[in-house]
């Protein structure tokens, strides 16, 4: 359950940053990304997938959230 900081980069894409793992990767896709919920399965640019229960209403980025790793 890594603690992840999600922030936007200069191009406005969401970045997934895990300080302890030195992992900083663009979020390629999010399962739920609507006006009233954000979350579900999150796929990163390098193919790794994580899960978070959809948050409603969507959080304001940057923020720190706890994700689950899906293998």
């Amino acid at each position: 359950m890594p603690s992840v900081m999600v922030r936007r980069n200069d191009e406005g894409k969401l970045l997934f940053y895990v300080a302890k793992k030195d992992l900083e990767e663009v979020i390629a896709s999010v399962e739920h990304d609507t006006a009233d919920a954000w979350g579900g399965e999150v796929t990163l640019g390098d193919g790794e997938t994580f899960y978070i229960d959809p948050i409603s209403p969507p959080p304001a980025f940057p923020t720190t959230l706890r994700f689950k790793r899906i293998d």
Partner: protein
Amino acid sequence: MAAMTREETQNLIAEVLAVYPEKAKKDRAKHLMVNDHSLESAKKCITSNRKALPGVMTIRGCAYAGSRGVCWGPVKDVVHISHGPVGCGMYSTMGRRHYANGTTGADIFTTINVTSDFQERDIVFGGDKKLKAMIDELEKLFPLAKGYTIQSECPIGLIGDDIESVAKVKSAEIGKTIVPVRCEGFRGVSQSLGHHIANDSIRDWVLPTRDGKDDGFETTPYDVNILADYNIGGDIWPSRMLLEEIGLRVIAQTPGDGTLMEMEKLPKAKLNLLHCYRSMNYIARHMEEKYGTPWMEYNLFGPTKIEQSLRAIAERFDDRIKDGVERVLAKYKPQWQAVVDKYRPRLEGKTVMLYVGGLRPRHIIGAYEDLGMKVVGTGYEFAHNDDYDRTIKEMGDATLIYDDVTAYELDEFVKKINPDLIGSGIKEKYQFQKMGFPFRQMHSWDYSGPYHGYDGFAIFARDMDMTLNNPCWTEIKAPWLRPAQPETQAA
């Protein structure tokens, strides 16, 4: 020498690693790579921020060095207590040239070395009492100090002293900020974790002190912070001058020549300018999350990078700053052009190998290139993956990149690549000078500097020329070892 091809560099790595036992070879091979511009991320081809291999020489420091020396050390109006045995405290006495303006003992304390000198007794009975007494004594000695930081050395963590509670009690008693920093040297694999711990202590003990309090601080839309510039040889001063000249207002420079009050004001800025990404990105990310202050990296080494950085900074602001940047670029063009005209012919085509700390292996590449020099190998002591991601783009294709390189490997790489100049730390300096290689100590600018900004670039160019073209390098070889010269002397 001519640029090496990918295959040659690959062979060089294999050749150097050949002497290692199988297991060590496998481990070290992960830390060496041949640069490839087509790579998006360094993750797949270089491993970093791992424990150094037992039995080889590493040049890394410890968490205490990262916090006491690097992140907290330059904060000038605070007394830094090295809490623990005397050695660590002794060796942190201004070994690093972070300059500060002021009068020692009155408003600056960076040159003062304070340690609690732990003895057996303190290990057995705990050192909290001693720490309390020490803070009282310091209050008498330096009543103008704005606060204290308690930098723990290894034994504090081992015996489990509660420095946080001492900090809270004493802070309430004397009404000053006291920051306990849990930077015991055994934490982490290098000084890098010490930076992180120091950042966390700023986050927990300094930044929130003004939260929710309107202290009447007037802000402007042009307020910026200079973060993670350590004022080595005075670096922060030309940087600040440049930023102010383009029309920005620097409200805090930290830690270099910085004060505790500036640190408390950090959240008031509109933009955080991050110089050393490795050591202070944590606090920048925290401020982005908590206070909504965006951050960006910048680089003020050499005219090309200065131009890029200033333009990128101006993009975040309105036309007033953009005009300011154009005006400043035009103003300094003749100045740096004269430097390039003077030194470039003397340095053109020379090759450099670097092995420094956390940002210089990539940041100074631009300055060398402005002088017509080529960086053929670079590496970090304690960088993480994200640093290598940034390095891949800066370095030439097929150049050598090494992480936490061992003394043996660096020696062998230098012998084979045969660069014209080496830039590394004090521990490598004399070894390479004895081998006959011109060398610059790039941690503390070899007792020179500043190297930032246009003023710094002139000094940088002079220093490189002075080292590289020094006549002493032809005299390194003993006369009887030199190739036989034709007899020129008449009988």
